[in-house]
């Protein structure tokens, strides 16, 4: 076991994948000499060379589009998009090409791209540096989407993403980049939980609280705070956003009867909407209350002085738990 930060774990995952497969190449802005603006790729250009760790000109569409060509040629490209809000110039290539090529070619052309995206807020950044665009990609058939919440998952999920013959959007919770955890660098990938598997990270019996990425740590804090009030919250880390592994959610909600979903992304058509709908279909007879969503508001990401109001925090999650339990809450008296 090694104790690593989340960035170090991703770095280790990239390093391992490049050691294992000479066809793995990295593309991105400032990923080489600088080692990435978050230092995720620190040292990789030095160790693997500038032909495998490629500082690209500033063009996200070209980063993704040339990765498509590299994949045609048999490479396994890992693209870094510097910040969440910079991905949109590459959106056309992702949606129109990366996601569709396998089906378009009757399965003859595979697109084993991994697209790494630091995402989410909470770091006091200017506009376009704190967004949560994951729902766009979950909505796009042909893409797999994952998000790690801790160093071990980051290491394992990244290796699985790179090994996947499907394109994978890999969302990194940038405000947790410096959080530390134990990582088993030598673990056999074949024995690891499947890339799509959700995980119960804290067991409970009263309410099921589902989240992913940066808010897993906040949800665990909320569960501890709820325990002080005698409320037992089960926290589930989705890990995979496409596909969503509903098994652990169903198993949990059949016991708790109450479901809260929380994410930084806006509410309307966010992951919470899909999960609430799917869980209502799957567990209608077990639900004691309507599923509750605690999310960012339906606004463009606000100036950083206001982000603490936009992002779900411990108190808003607990308010959601109260709503699910029918306890007094911020909506009491408003909802008929």
């Amino acid at each position: 076991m090694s104790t690593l930060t989340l960035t170090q774990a991703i770095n280790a995952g990239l390093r391992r994948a490049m050691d294992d497969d000479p066809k793995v190449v990295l593309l991105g802005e400032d990923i080489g000499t600088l080692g990435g603006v978050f230092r995720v790729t620190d040292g990789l250009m030095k160790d693997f060379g500038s032909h495998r760790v490629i500082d690209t000109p500033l063009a996200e569409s070209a980063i993704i589009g040339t990765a498509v060509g590299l994949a045609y040629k048999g490479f396994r490209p890992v693209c870094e998009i510097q910040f969440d809000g910079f991905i949109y110039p590459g959106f056309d290539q992702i949606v129109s090409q990366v996601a569709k090529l396998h089906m378009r070619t009757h399965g003859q052309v595979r697109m084993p791209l991994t697209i790494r995206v630091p995402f989410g807020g909470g770091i006091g950044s200017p506009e376009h540096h704190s967004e949560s665009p994951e729902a766009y990609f979950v909505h796009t058939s042909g893409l797999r989407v994952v998000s790690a919440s801790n160093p071990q998952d980051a290491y394992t999920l990244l290796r699985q993403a790179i090994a996947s013959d499907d394109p994978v959007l890999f969302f990194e919770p940038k405000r947790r980049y410096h959080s530390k955890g134990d990582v088993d660098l030598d673990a056999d990938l074949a024995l690891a939980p499947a890339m799509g598997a959700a995980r119960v990270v804290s067991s409970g019996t009263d309410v099921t609280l589902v989240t992913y990425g940066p808010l897993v740590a906040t949800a665990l804090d909320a569960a501890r705070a709820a325990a002080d009030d005698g409320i037992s919250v089960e926290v589930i880390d989705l890990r995979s956003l496409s596909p969503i592994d509903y098994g652990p959610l169903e198993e949990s909600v059949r016991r708790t009867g109450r479901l809260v979903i929380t994410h930084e992304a806006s509410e309307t058509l966010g992951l919470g909407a899909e999960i609430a709908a799917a869980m209502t279909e799957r567990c209608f007879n077990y639900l004691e209350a309507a599923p509750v969503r605690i999310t960012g508001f339906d606004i463009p990401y606000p100036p950083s002085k206001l982000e603490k109001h936009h992002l779900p925090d411990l108190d808003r999650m607990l308010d959601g738990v109260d709503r699910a339990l029918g306890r007094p809450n911020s909506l009491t008296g408003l909802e008929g």
Partner: protein
Amino acid sequence: MLDTSANTGSPTDSVIHQLITATGTRVPDEVLAPFAAGVDNEQLLKLYQDMVVIRRIDFEATALQRQGQLALWPPMLGQEAAQIGSVRALVAEDFIFPTYRENGVAYCRGANLTGIMSTWRGSANTGWDPHEINMATPQIIIGAQTLHATGYAMGLTMEGKESLAIAYLGDGATSQGDVHEAMVFAASFQAPVIFFCQNNHWAISEPVGLQAHVPLAGRAPGYGIPSLRVDGNDVLAVLAATQWAAARARSGGGPSFIEAVTYRMGPHTTADDPTRYRETSELEEWRGKDPIARVRALLTNNGTLDAGAEAEVAAKADAVAAELRAGCIGMPDPEPMTLFDNVYTGEHAILDRQRDHYSRYLGGFAGAPAGNSSAEGKLS
């Protein structure tokens, strides 16, 4: 008007037009000279003062970021001549589409200092009314503003106006598809737009040689857009080049491209560490080409900048610095409920419901003991 046929910027033409050398000597340049002819020593002194003032703004803002008063700051150190020479060639009706680094341009356009700082403090996305000062807000998405400038210029043509739009962009931006599409549209519709490219040699850690194997000014002629490559640390050369492009735009000559060759003396932003990717010897080389020092030398040598004038310039810089500091430090945080403002021009049932709910939620903390509300505290 200048015959532009000789200046269509062959891709391999690396001539850098200049009017003031690094040591402060006036030199002839037949391309630029007609467009600098009207600039006398008093006007050059004003340009000098502008540069001194915006360098002071830059120093103060950098210090305020270090003190925690600003969340971030993108220094313009070294690029004062490029910013001042270009903006001072424009008239008030000309519309500017800047990047995030044109804070000196914004100041010269009359943007309020506190407003400029509000964006970098994290208090507001915008520190000025674009329609009031004819300047769009700082663009962070690299190159996007070149399309906006082109569209604005197309609108000027449609309305028969003799005005122009100018897009500021950097060397890194020239790799973005948006910039190339902007040049295609600008040429197709002969839009009165100036692409003002500050080649400051670095896109965060990436040297300009990664973006282009030819001088950036050489890109434009391929689209049918005449270009000029000028010493971006020479305020007079930049002013003249911008006048050249402006004259073309105002007389129906269509788009122009200027490459102002300069150098980013500071980090990309205060979050960046350039020691990781560039040699200090390069910095020293460019320190010798300082845009302010050369004008100081020229104006001192010709007697324009005497002790009295220098004291006036210093006093102006001091006053601006004091105003900036006071405005920044005294800036109140935005009210929480402003989160929901201006998403739409009118009502929106879903968002209105979220606003009402959050207002009610915050109200629930009103009676709570102080410090008990993480909604008012740090993010967990």
